[in-house]
């Protein structure tokens, strides 16, 4: 599903350069549930952004479903994001002026068109069909993250990327979110990558990848 070969990422910082990734090699099979752990600044978010086609590597190759995507233009990358990848963010990133339903519909907007029935179904799967017309500002953190998950899965992407999905939540809501994500993974065979600081959450995953100083330094299988 995902093959990273010798990926580097260098950001120009004024006159100096900041090397964030120094030759990452990683293979992730279809249907895996993977946790990425590492200290702040280790480059794990950059790695996730590259995998999510939000950014392009400075060098190296990235094959997504067998297709080289690291040299694609911004329009093609947007197309991949629209159709193949669902994002779940630490800060939820919902549009505050839109209802939960409209936020979920936004997930389909750039992926072939809005289908209200499917949006409602996605909300039901995260247990929020009763709150479809509420705005994010009227919801708890856990509920907002569930809306975000519904938004990510509404277009049935093969890959879901979650960047510290429980980072802004209390432990009970966090547990809820993790159980939703893991059960989605189990039920639909979605490939799921998630960054987390929390070892207990990471142990819900089949595989834990440790990142440090811009490199994969080890991995364990649970």
């Amino acid at each position, binding site marked *: 599903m995902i093959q990273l070969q010798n990926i580097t990422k260098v950001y120009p910082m004024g006159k100096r350069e900041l090397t964030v990734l120094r030759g990452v090699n990683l293979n992730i099979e279809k249907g895996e549930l993977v946790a990425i752990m590492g200290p702040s600044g280790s480059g794990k978010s950059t790695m996730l*952004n590259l995998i*999510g086609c*939000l*950014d392009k590597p400075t060098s190296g190759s990235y094959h997504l479903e067998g297709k080289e995507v690291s040299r694609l233009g*911004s*329009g093609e990358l*947007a*197309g*991949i*994001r*629209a*159709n193949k*990848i669902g*994002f779940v*963010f630490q800060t939820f*990133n*919902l*549009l505050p*002026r*839109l209802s939960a339903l409209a936020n979920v519909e*936004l*997930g389909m*907007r*750039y*992926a072939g*068109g*809005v289908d*209200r029935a499917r949006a409602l179904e996605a909300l039901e799967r995260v247990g929020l069909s009763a709150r479809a017309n509420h705005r994010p500002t009227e919801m708890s953190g856990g509920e907002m993250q569930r809306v975000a998950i519904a*938004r990510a899965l509404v277009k049935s992407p093969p890959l879901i990327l979650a960047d510290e999905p429980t980072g802004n939540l209390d432990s009970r809501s966090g547990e809820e979110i993790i159980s939703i994500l893991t059960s989605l993974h189990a039920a639909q065979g979605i490939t799921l990558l998630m960054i987390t600081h929390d070892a207990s959450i990471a142990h819900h995953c089949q595989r834990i990848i440790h990142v440090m100083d811009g490199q994969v330094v080890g991995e364990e299988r649970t």
Partner: protein
Amino acid sequence: MKKWLDPLSTAWVGVATHKLRSFLTILGIVIGVAAVITLMSIGKGAEARIISNIESMGSDLITIRPGSFTFGGVRSAAGGAATLTMEDAAAISERVPNVAAVAPSYSSSLQVVIGGQNTNSQVTGVTPEYMPVNNLELAEGAFFSEYDYQRGAKVAVLGAGVKETLFGDTSAVGQQMRMGTIIVRVIGVLDSKGGIMGSPDDTILIPLTAMQQTVAQPRTAQGERVVSSIALSVSDEQQSDLVVAEITSLLRTRHQLGPSDDDDFRIMSMEEIASTLSEAIGTMTLLLGAIAAISLLVGGIGVMNIMLVSVLERTREIGIRKALGAREHDIWIQFLIEAAFLTLAGGIIGVIVGWAVSYLVSSMGVMTTVVSADIVILAVSVSVGIGLFFGFYPAWNASRLNPIEALRSE
């Protein structure tokens, strides 16, 4: 939901969430469009009114007036020369084809006495043809006949304005008045023309033959009787130019003008006057419209300003949309539509306001106004165009944002 509807509803949400700001943004456009509509409608109204006035005088009317004369290097004012004569009128009637009727007239200011009242009025001696040639209608009474004219009957027909001044609301027909050395009886009153330039409203018409009994009509060196003007109607308006040309050559011959001499008369056809006037008003209207259009431009800059702020404020939203797979042109179109939507709303409100103002202006009787469809369509499409033009750069800015940086922004 239809795919093309999505950007529209997104734009609507964008506009509706900042109602006050959206309103202030489009205020410039509203004022600009309203000003254009109002000024253009007033201009069009004035034009329409003048044209209808001229048409009421008869668009087949041609008027000949004496020109200026030069004597020892001194040029008199136009109309000062005594060059037109009864004989000229008769010659035109006989020799120029396509002339329906010719009406020479001689005007003079006379002392008019009614009862104890003594006023100075313009009295015009005319032939019976005067009435049809000038397209006049009677409010009451009758006009004098060919027989009255032949025998020099002492009868008068009053212009509406003169009747008002001399008799007020009381009936004028049948009343007597002294005019110079003769006493005339009023037999008719004309309908008001409300016209421009030498309107018959302000004159007393009597048979020219009667006029000669009290005022000595001057004669030229050749012994012809001088007139103040000659009005004539053409039988075929299409031939108007030809008639003017033929009269010119006829009068030049009769007045024995050499090839290097200027005409000593001036011929004005109503058609020509109408086109000159409406052209002048059209230019004026366009000028007013252009000044109003400047405020549209200023309004457009305001829209651009707000759109730039809006893009900045919604950087995170743009990041989210990009993460969800929005391409650059999706974002670009979203903001462009939002800008066009704002200015379209401004344009429509502006049309309504402009329409209301011009309605008010005409209903208060200040001026007649005509709101024409082409101006409305033009104003609305120009305002949409302004939105697209001034929204272009902000929308382009938005579309170029880096999704990761946009997501990180607060």
